[in-house]
């Protein structure tokens, strides 16, 4: 499996949010996506997951073209995401949030109720058990019956990751998972990310915390003003002049 973004351009009226960006993600790999504020990272996420329609360019999963699909269809192709600002179902419990994540794994719809209730109940029991396991995997089992908006911020962030994992993705797109986390929570997050990678799920990580990105991403891609300005290993990125300039500005001569 290979996720490929090809020559992607996204315009909002006259504003070019992404310009001719190409980026590949192999199965089981983690790629860091960094760039100053407003450089188009979240836009890229939204185009890949179908929330925005690209002005030109393509999003390919192997040979399959995902560019024109709706977000809910893209989930079916094995892409899952988290949101930059928390986007949990607040008035549902952590467990129910994860169960919603498994939506596409459930076949019983409205009418199954009438002609095959037993199967619907059976299926529901399995889903509940699986959701419980996913929470356990991330060490969240004791929060499973808490309402989402009553949970601490750091826990909510991890519940969101758990919910994304529930759809059994092959590619996980994390949008600033460490934003607002304290040191202990950040370490926990790194552990979680490693755990996900061990399962063979590829991650595209947008993150402002350079420490994390440099630590866990063998390959990093840098955006600035909607264009890709560099791609390489952490040390290459560290020494790349264009990147330093984008973040810190030009040295005075």
């Amino acid at each position, binding site marked *: 499996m290979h996720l490929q973004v090809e020559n992607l351009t996204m315009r909002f009226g006259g504003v070019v949010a992404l310009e001719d960006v190409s980026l590949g993600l192999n199965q089981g790999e983690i790629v860091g996506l960094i760039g100053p504020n407003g450089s188009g990272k979240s836009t890229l996420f939204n185009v890949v997951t179908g929330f925005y329609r690209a002005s030109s360019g393509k999003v390919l999963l192997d040979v399959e073209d995902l560019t024109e699909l*709706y977000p809910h269809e893209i989930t079916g192709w094995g892409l899952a995401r988290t949101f930059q600002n928390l986007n949990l179902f607040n008035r549902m419990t952590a467990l129910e949030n994860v169960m919603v994540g498994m939506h596409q794994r459930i076949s019983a719809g409205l009418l199954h109720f009438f002609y095959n209730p037993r199967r619907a109940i059976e299926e529901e029991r399995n889903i509940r058990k699986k959701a419980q396991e996913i929470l356990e995997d991330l060490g969240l089992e004791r929060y499973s019956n808490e309402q989402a908006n009553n949970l601490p911020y750091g826990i909510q962030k991890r519940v969101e990751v758990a919910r994304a994992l529930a759809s059994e993705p092959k590619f996980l797109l994390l949008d600033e998972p460490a934003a607002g986390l304290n040191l202990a929570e950040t370490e926990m997050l790194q552990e979680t990310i490693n755990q996900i990678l061990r399962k063979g799920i590829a991650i595209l990580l947008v993150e402002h915390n350079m420490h994390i990105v440099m630590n866990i991403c063998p390959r990093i891609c840098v955006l600035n003003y909607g264009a890709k300005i560099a791609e390489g290993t952490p040390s290459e990125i560290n020494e790349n002049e264009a990147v330093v300039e984008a973040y810190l500005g030009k040295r005075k001569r």
Partner: protein
Amino acid sequence: MRFSLTRITLYGVLATILFLLPVFVKSVYVMHIINMSLIYIIVVSGLNIIMGYCGQFALAHSAFYGVGAYTSAILSTRFGISFWICLPAAVIASCIAGFLTSLPCLKVKGHYLAMVSLGLGIVIHEAMVNLENLTNGAAGIINIPPPFLFGVSLDTDHRYYPIILVFTILSILFVKSLLRFKVGRAFIAIRESYTAAEAMGINHRFFKVQGFVLSASYAGLAGSLYVHLVKFVSPDSFGLGELITEFAMLIVGGVGTLGGPVLGAIILSFAYEYLRALHSLQMITYGVMILLFVLFMPRGLVTIKDWVFALRKGAHSASSG
């Protein structure tokens, strides 16, 4: 689902009391109010599906109620069709109305959804007034036959009550079980965050349509039960005032809760009758009630239950600690 013995006994006793209610209630007037409360429980439970669970601010509900009522009225008076066929026909007609209404409503959100659905509701209401060949216009349809069950005419409130009660209980149970499964969760997910719902693979258009249709089917069921109870139908019963009543019931009871429609429907049905003396002040009283509830008890009367729990918990921990 697990049931303890005490729970089964509790429900058993409750059901027995409910079914034996006509034995204890002698007044025809009170029995009629009770029947109307039950019918409103169904109507408002339907409104609760689309507003409370799906989070769609849809204002065509009283029109769907009317579609059900008129379908049943026309079929039984014109064609002499039995109540037991009129009822499902009314439900289907309302479902179709709900489906058609949902299509333009998918394009809009929030205030615009409210306006579009209100507009469509008014169109349906105008159709009731103006399609005189079919609906007999503003004069309405009279002499709607009561239902028959095993050859017995259910022509009084006391006799009709058990049938209405059964449908009411089934309606509530259906919502209750719906919430435990995928469809109910998808509804709530759409209400809570439709971007996140989409990212989780929920086709929000498809589920909104389901929400509309399901909600309309409840209104249709109630409409059919209603016309065979009062034996008369006119467009007046399904206008804006009706919509406000349904809204008031939902808000006073508790939006997005299972018990809310039940509480709201019963309390306001009785309040409505006993406020009749106020004439034109009736609607104003309703308005003030909604206002007060939104301000001071936005989650409705069902929250009282939480207070009682909290009090008991507090007393408990105080005595044990």
